[in-house]
């Protein structure tokens, strides 16, 4: 079953009466429960593509549907994890994660029980009363993931969420994300410029060209998880995608 269908999607920005073409003729089908990664060089429009799937931005041409319904505005059904830190600094970890259930009007006891479960899932139970400025970058992104998951979305859209983290933290969070994906059965669309990350995480890697971004090639990654970065298949796949990006 397809969740997201993108048909002939293009995006132009108009700046000083000059059209700037960001994305061109994107056709993409994303299956239910799939872990899809989108890689591409900086400025190729991959973030814009993800924002359009979420409803934060709109295509200039073409259509995007989720389960047959036109995507018109952001929804808690499509959890979004931003690249930059997006936690509300005036709320504790607990109340950041509680934001979604709170605006939905869930009663307070049920809300906090649910929230604690998700904070535990990302391993931050000891920090539930901390404020974001007391957390490390990796912890902030864990909270952001919990904050999106607590709404029980169909899909999780992630925009280079681990880009600012050091390698060790990034690897740890990648493993946890795979574990969460396996447990929670969500569709994940993960944008990154890091080929290693894409190959480690995804079932399928979509490679975008330089601006205006269009799909050059799609790779199916058929390796068992948690993936071993040192196997020849892993390295071979990485090399192939990297070569493709560099030759573009």
């Amino acid at each position, binding site marked *: 079953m397809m969740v997201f269908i993108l048909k002939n999607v293009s995006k132009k920005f108009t700046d000083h009466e000059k059209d700037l073409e960001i994305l061109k003729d994107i056709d993409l089908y994303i299956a239910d429960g799939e872990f899809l990664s989108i890689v591409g060089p900086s400025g190729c429009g991959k973030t814009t593509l993800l924002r359009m799937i979420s409803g934060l931005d709109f295509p200039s041409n073409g259509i995007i549907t989720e389960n047959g319904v036109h995507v018109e505005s*952001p929804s808690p059904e499509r959890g979004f994890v931003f690249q930059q830190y997006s936690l509300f600094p005036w709320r504790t970890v607990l109340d950041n994660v509680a934001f979604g259930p709170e605006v939905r009007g869930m009663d307070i006891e049920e809300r906090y029980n649910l929230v604690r479960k998700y904070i535990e899932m990302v391993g931050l139970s000891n920090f539930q009363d901390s404020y974001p*400025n007391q957390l490390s970058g990796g912890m902030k992104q864990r909270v952001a993931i919990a904050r999106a998951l607590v709404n029980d979305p169909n899909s999780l859209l992630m925009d280079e969420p681990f880009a600012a983290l050091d390698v060790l933290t990034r690897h740890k969070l990648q493993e946890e994300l795979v574990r969460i994906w396996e447990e929670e059965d969500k569709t994940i669309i993960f944008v990154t410029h890091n080929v290693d990350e894409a190959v480690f995480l995804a079932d399928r890697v979509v490679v975008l060209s330089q601006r205006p971004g269009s799909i050059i090639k799609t790779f199916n990654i058929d390796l068992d998880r948690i993936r071993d970065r040192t196997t020849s298949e892993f390295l071979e796949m990485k090399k192939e995608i990297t070569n493709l990006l560099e030759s573009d």
Partner: protein
Amino acid sequence: MRKTLISLVVPTIIIIFWALLTTYTGIIPSYLIPSPHDVFVAFITLLVNGTLISDTIETLTRVILGFIVAAAVAIPLGIIIGWSKTIENYLGFTIGILRPIPPIAWIPFAILWFGLGLGSAIFIIFVGSVFPILINTADGVKRIDKVYVESASTLGADQYQTLRKVVVPAALPNIITGLKVGMGIALMCTVAAEMIGSNNGLGYLILTATSMLDSASAIVGMLTIGLIGLGFEYIFSSMERNLNW
């Protein structure tokens, strides 16, 4: 403690020079600047006869009332102006023209609209403090990091919830700055406000003392206003520190 001591260095030096130039050498005659001793005597006199305390209470009442009305108007309006480009386009020009008008220029209208006394005083203080609160609030709302608003919408908040649960708390530091500046100006307006039909208050005390050439009492009134301002500054600063982020 160390900070308190450091902050007292300059006032101490001023008082020493002030005393040297007046009481001890007479270089500056007392009709130009009263000596520290004269001011102290005036202070004790005003304190003992109760004027100083009752004037302080009167002024505080007017300032706080005018300030509350100003905040009640300026905070919601500032949030709306900061949030909606359209409303800013409608109101920006008008506010731009009204803002630089000195509060004292409104006195004739204050008398016509509110009569002599409390109403006029509150109005003058309102005019003085409404704009800094308004401008800072609008500015704070405009500067909110877009990612907070977008996060809220991806988490299911509607416009009103976003405004209440994200925009207002995110703008709170700027709102408090606006309140701080607004309170400073409210206090600066006390003399103007109490020119109209008041027969008490620190502004009135300064005006009457000045007209009777009692400059020592005027200085007592001035310093009292200064201390009140310092007190409010302290209150708002501790509110800022209590924001936790």
